[in-house]
């Protein structure tokens, strides 16, 4: 039931002057497919692109529009009701309980930490159940494993119940099975109508779960399309260098990307 692309980036330019690096995005829209991955080598501009899309960074030129409205002219609270953003790391200042972290996701809807409205409580319960942390809801963050902590942050972003959710490397530093579990959670939510845009490091996970991939290279979009179109040997070799090999998964046509000696 999505008619128009919801998050649109127009003629975007952003530069880190001191590093002599810049990102240029002529035209890009998110929110048309359930799960979109943003991939590319380190320093290609994935996180910067995501922060621009979330309105955390202000572009030097161009604009980002959410549902036809420029982000720059919206209040953060307004944005956060429709567009979620989960950074790579959420360093906790105090030792919050899992439940409190997830409840913070309801900030834009009015509830924080101590939930008052039943809608807030339901959203938190749903998010906790989705990430499989319902049993650990009272557990303080300091007593969680790295994977559990990452799922707690994810639950916080899910509890926000936005139309679009931007995630910066949600599977970073996770084991193979944990990474796949996180992608499963996102795919399940995406099937229920959430539009997910995730910066991905792991090309195999990206190829397996995403409906669309955007490949960045040196601050520009090198490819944009289905995983089978984007994860080709020629494209990846030109983006990542020649120490890379692309195979086909036997049971499907999904590409597998491997390092080569």
């Amino acid at each position, binding site marked *: 039931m999505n008619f128009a692309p919801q998050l649109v980036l127009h003629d975007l330019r952003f530069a880190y002057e001191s590093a002599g690096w810049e990102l240029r995005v002529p035209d890009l829209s998110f929110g048309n497919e359930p799960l979109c991955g943003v991939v590319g080598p380190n320093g290609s501009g994935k996180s910067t692109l995501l*922060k621009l899309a*979330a*309105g*955390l960074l202000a572009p030097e030129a161009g604009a980002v529009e959410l549902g036809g409205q420029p982000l720059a002219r919206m*209040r*953060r*609270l*307004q*944005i*956060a*009701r429709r567009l*979620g*953003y*989960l*950074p790579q*790391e*959420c*360093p*906790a*200042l*105090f*030792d*919050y*309980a899992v439940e*409190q*972290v997830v409840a*913070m*996701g309801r*900030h*834009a809807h009015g509830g*924080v*930490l*101590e939930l008052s409205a039943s809608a807030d409580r339901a959203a938190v319960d749903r998010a906790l159940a989705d990430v499989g942390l319902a049993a650990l809801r009272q557990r303080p963050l*300091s007593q969680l494993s790295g994977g559990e902590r990452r799922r707690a*942050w994810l639950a*916080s*972003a899910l509890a*926000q119940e936005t139309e679009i959710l*931007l995630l910066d490397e949600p599977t970073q530093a996770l084991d193979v099975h944990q990474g796949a579990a996180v992608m499963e959670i996102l795919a399940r939510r995406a099937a229920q109508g959430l539009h997910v845009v995730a910066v991905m490091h792991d090309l195999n996970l990206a190829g397996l779960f995403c409906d669309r991939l955007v490949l960045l290279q040196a601050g520009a979009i090198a490819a944009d399309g289905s995983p089978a179109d984007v994860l080709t040997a020629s494209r990846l070799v030109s983006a990542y260098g020649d120490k890379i090999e692309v195979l086909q998964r036997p049971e499907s046509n999904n590409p597998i990307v491997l390092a080569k000696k």
Partner: protein
Amino acid sequence: MTKNRKIYALLAVFAVALAVFPWIGAEKLSVREIAAFAIGDWTADGMIFFQIRLPRVLLGLLAGGALALAGAALQVIFRNPLAEPWTLGIAGGASLGAFLARMCPFLWFALGPLNTSQALALLGAAGALGLVLSLARRSATGAQTLLLAGVTLGVVCGGAIMVISGFISPWKLAEFHRWLLGGLDAADWASVGALAALAVPGATLMALQARNLNPLGLGEEMAAGQGVDVARVRRWTAIGAGVASAGVAAVAGPIGFVGLLAPHAVRKIVGPDARLVLPGSFLFGGALLAACDALGRWAAAPLEVPVGALTAVLGGPLFLWLLARRR
């Protein structure tokens, strides 16, 4: 007991402090004479109770509350559990301003509860805050740098006060010696009014941001993603903390550790929700400072120990103990 209820326990502690501490001091007071004073007879005990002890306890409650509230808020916006008006140099800057106003008669001007001491304290607090804020913005890994800068700033301001006092007659200096160490002994109703004039608006500004402080506990980016206008929340919280700290420094001088200790203790009791931690810190910090002051009056009676010196000596080790218990 739920966390919400625990805040009432802190309120009770505050009320007990207000009810008990006016009775503590060098002079033993008689209830009958105080009652007589209250209904119109002049009695020495009544005079001491109503004109000296009560304003002094109120001053302690309000000053300690303002410092603790500022500490609780500053710890979140600077994302540093060791931040407070004293460790960030705000108390130092404000004290230098207040000292200048007191030492230079040509600078002195008063209007109702407001005077130049507060104005210059505000200026000093603003200067210190501006400096540490710009430092915090410049360096990404600034947690330690920030505290070093803040403490250094406090030392520099303390040094400046010492240099200026070298030019002042020793008689005049003796009058301010207590104030230099952080003291509540010059308390009267006028100083309570002077403190309230800044502490109440400062505390209000911080309290209004309490709700927005929570998501900041998981980082600026997460908070922004959840709908917090980080720059705005930072700005108003810092202004509130600066105003409240300046108010305290102007009447009582630099008082350390209350702003550090009280919020940590309160978080142990009510958890990390800023909407409980901020009011809880005010209540607990107020009671704590009033208690330290009462102790200073009682322990060395008929002499007195300046409360600022006492909070440092007692608060420091207690804080270390809290830190050790954290994990």
